[in-house]
C-alpha cells in the first residue's frame, strides 16, 4: 500500500487528533438532533442548514469587527428564536404526523434556508479568522490549530451545561417527561406545545453554537448543510436516543473515520465517504436485526 498516511506515522497522529476534535463538534450537533427526535419524533433535514446559519451569524460579527469567538454566545441566542419561530410556523403542524412528512417538510425548509443564505451571504466559501495561532506537537510534525482545541473545549462545556440544565431545571424535567410520554405529561399539566417549541429552540441554539465554532475552525458555504444533517443522523442511529456518552464516542469515531478517509481516498471523496458510511451503517444494522426477524424502528 503506497498511501502516504501509512508511510508517515506522524500523519496518523495528526489525523487522529483532528478527527477527535472535529468529532466532538459533530457530537454537539447530533445531541440536538437526538433531543428533537426523542422528544418530538421528527427528523430535521434542515439541521445542517441551521448549523450553517449559526456560522454565518458568527461570520457577520467577524465582518463587523467583533471577534468571531463571541459568536458562541450570540449565535445560540439568535438561533433559539429562529428555532422557536420555525416551530410556530411549520414544525408544529408536522409533529404528530408520519415521519416522512416531517422529513419532506424540513427538506423544504432546508432549501429555503440555503437559498436565503445564498442571497444574503453570497456563494463564496468563507471562514472567520480567529487568529488563535497553532500548537506544534512532536517536534513540529503535528500542527494543531488552537481554534480546533477551543471549539472542542466550548462544545464539551455547552454539552455539560445542557445535561445539567436538563436534569435540574423545571423546563428540562418537562422536556424529559414529554419525551417519555407526551400524553401523560399533558394530563399532568405540562404545556407540551411550549415544551416542543422550547426543544426545537434549544436544538437550533445548539446548532448555532456548532455553527459559530465551524465558522472559525472549518469553512462555511450556503450548500454544505446536508452533510452535517447526515453526520448527526448517523451519530444518533449508532448511539441511540438520549445516550450522551455514546453520542460523544460515536461522534469522535465519525470524526476519525472522516479524517482517515480524507487521507486514504482523497479529499474529493470525503463527503461521498460520509454518505456511504451512512448507507453501510443502516444496512449493517438491518442485517443484524433481520437475524432476529426485526427491523429498525
Amino acid at each position, binding site marked *: 500500500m503506497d498511501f502516504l498516511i501509512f508511510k508517515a506515522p506522524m500523519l496518523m497522529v495528526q489525523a487522529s487528533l483532528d478527527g477527535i476534535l472535529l468529532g466532538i463538534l459533530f457530537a454537539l450537533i447530533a445531541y440536538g438532533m437526538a433531543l428533537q427526535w426523542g422528544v418530538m419524533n421528527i*427528523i430535521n433535514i434542515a439541521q445542517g442548514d441551521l448549523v450553517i446559519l449559526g456560522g454565518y451569524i458568527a461570520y457577520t460579527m467577524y465582518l463587523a469587527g467583533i471577534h468571531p469567538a463571541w459568536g458562541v454566545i450570540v449565535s445560540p441566542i439568535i438561533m433559539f428564536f429562529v428555532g422557536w419561530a420555525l416551530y410556530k410556523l*411549520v414544525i408544529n*403542524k*408536522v409533529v404528530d*404526523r408520519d*415521519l*416522512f*412528512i416531517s*422529513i*419532506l*417538510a424540513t*427538506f*423544504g*425548509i*432546508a*432549501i*429555503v*434556508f*440555503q*437559498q*436565503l443564505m445564498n*442571497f444574503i451571504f453570497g456563494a463564496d466559501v468563507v471562514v472567520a479568522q480567529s487568529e488563535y495561532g497553532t500548537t506544534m506537537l512532536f517536534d513540529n510534525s503535528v500542527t494543531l490549530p488552537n481554534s480546533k482545541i477551543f471549539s472542542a473545549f466550548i462544545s464539551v462545556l455547552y454539552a455539560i451545561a445542557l445535561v445539567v440544565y436538563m436534569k435540574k431545571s423545571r423546563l428540562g424535567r418537562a422536556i424529559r417527561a414529554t419525551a417519555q410520554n407526551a400524553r401523560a405529561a399533558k394530563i399532568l399539566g405540562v404545556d407540551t406545545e411550549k415544551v416542543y417549541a422550547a426543544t426545537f429552540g434549544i436544538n437550533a441554539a445548539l446548532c448555532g453554537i456548532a455553527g459559530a465554532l465551524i465558522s472559525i475552525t472549518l469553512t462555511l458555504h450556503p450548500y454544505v448543510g*446536508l452533510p452535517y444533517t*447526515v453526520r448527526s*443522523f448517523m451519530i444518533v*442511529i449508532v448511539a441511540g436516543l438520549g445516550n450522551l456518552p455514546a453520542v460523544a464516542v460515536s461522534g469522535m469515531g465519525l470524526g476519525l473515520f472522516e479524517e482517515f478517509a480524507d487521507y486514504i481516498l*482523497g479529499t*474529493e*471523496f470525503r*463527503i*461521498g465517504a460520509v*454518505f*456511504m458510511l*451512512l*448507507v453501510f451503517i*443502516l*444496512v449493517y444494522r*438491518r*442485517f443484524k436485526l*433481520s437475524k432476529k426477524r426485526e*427491523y*429498525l*424502528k
Partner: protein
Amino acid sequence: MVKLKQKDLILYSGLIILGLAAPYLFSAFKVQLTYLCVLIVLAMTWNLQGGEMGYNTFGNILFYGLGMYLTASVQVGMFFPLAEWTESGGEKTFVHTTAQYFQGIGVGLLVSAIVPAIVAGAIGYAILGLRGHYFAICTLGLGIAAGEIAGGIEIIGAGQGFTTPPFPAEIVDTEARGKFFYFLSFALLVGTFIFVKYIYSSRFRLILNAIRDNEDKAEAMGIQTMKYKIVGWMCSAFFCGLAGGIMGGLIGYIDSTDVAFDGREMGVFMVLMAILGGKGTLWGPVIGATLFHFFKEGLWTLILGWQYVALGVLIVVIVVYFPEGLMGWLREKYPERFGEVIDEKDRKAQVELK
C-alpha cells in the same frame, strides 16, 4: 391484457394524438414538452414505491443519474476512447457520424435501462430491508453519495463534467434534434404508462398495497414481500434509467451533482409531483407532474432568483397542507366517481362517534 372501455379508449387515443401532434402544434416548446414527458415518467415510477408500496424513496435519482452516465459513456465508448473524450474537449476531435450517433444512443439506452435495473436488484435486498424513515434517509444518502463519487471519477469527466455527443451535423433540419428527443421521451412515457396501467390491474399492485398497509401481516399471509419489493424497485429503475439516458442526450452536458445525481432538483421534484397529484393513484402523478411543470415554467421566469425559495415554500405547503394531493382531495369530494359506495348510515354513525 387490460380491456378498455369505450370512454377510456376515446380518452387515450385523444391523448396519444395530442402527444404526437404536440411538437408540431407547440413547435417552440419541444424541449419543455420533453422535460414534461420525463417528469411524468419519474413521478409515475416514484409512485410505484412511494405511493403503492409505501417506501418513500429519495434514491430513484440514483438510477436516473446512472442511466444518464451510462448512455453517454456507451455512446462515446463504442466508437472512441472514453478517457480522451472526457479529458479535454474530445467532442471537438472525435465526431460521430449519423449512423454512429443513432447506433450509440440506441445501445446506450438499452444499457441504461438494464444496468440500473440490475443495480436495483443487487442493492435491493440490503436497502429494502429498511423501513419507513430509515429507508428514506438511506436512499437519500445513496443518491448523494453517488453524485459525490461520480464527481471524483476521472474517466467520466469528474468534477468538470461530461459533454455528451452532439447531434450529428449532417442532419440539416434544425428541428430534427428537438423532435427526435421529444418522440423518444414520448415513446418512453407511453411505454411507462401502459406498464404502470398493467400493474394497476394486476395482482402485483395488490401485493404492493398489502406491503404498504401492513408489511408484517402481508408476510404472515404468505407473501414473500422482499421478492415483490425488489421487483417493484427494479421496474422503477428500468424506466428511471431510460429517462436519465434521454435527458442526458437532450441537455448535452452531464455534471455529477447538478445534472445527473441531482437530488436537490429532480430527486425532490419526483416526490413532490407524485404527492401533488396524489400518490397511490394512476393519474395522480401524471396530473401532478403536468401541474408542477406548468407552474415551474410559468413562474420560474417571473421570480427569477427566488425560484428555489418558492420551491422550498411549495414543498412545505404541499406536504403540510395537501399530503393527500389533488386526487385525494377529489376522492374526498366525489367518492362516487372513484367507484366508492358510501353508506350514509355508516357515515352518520362515524360522525356521531367523533
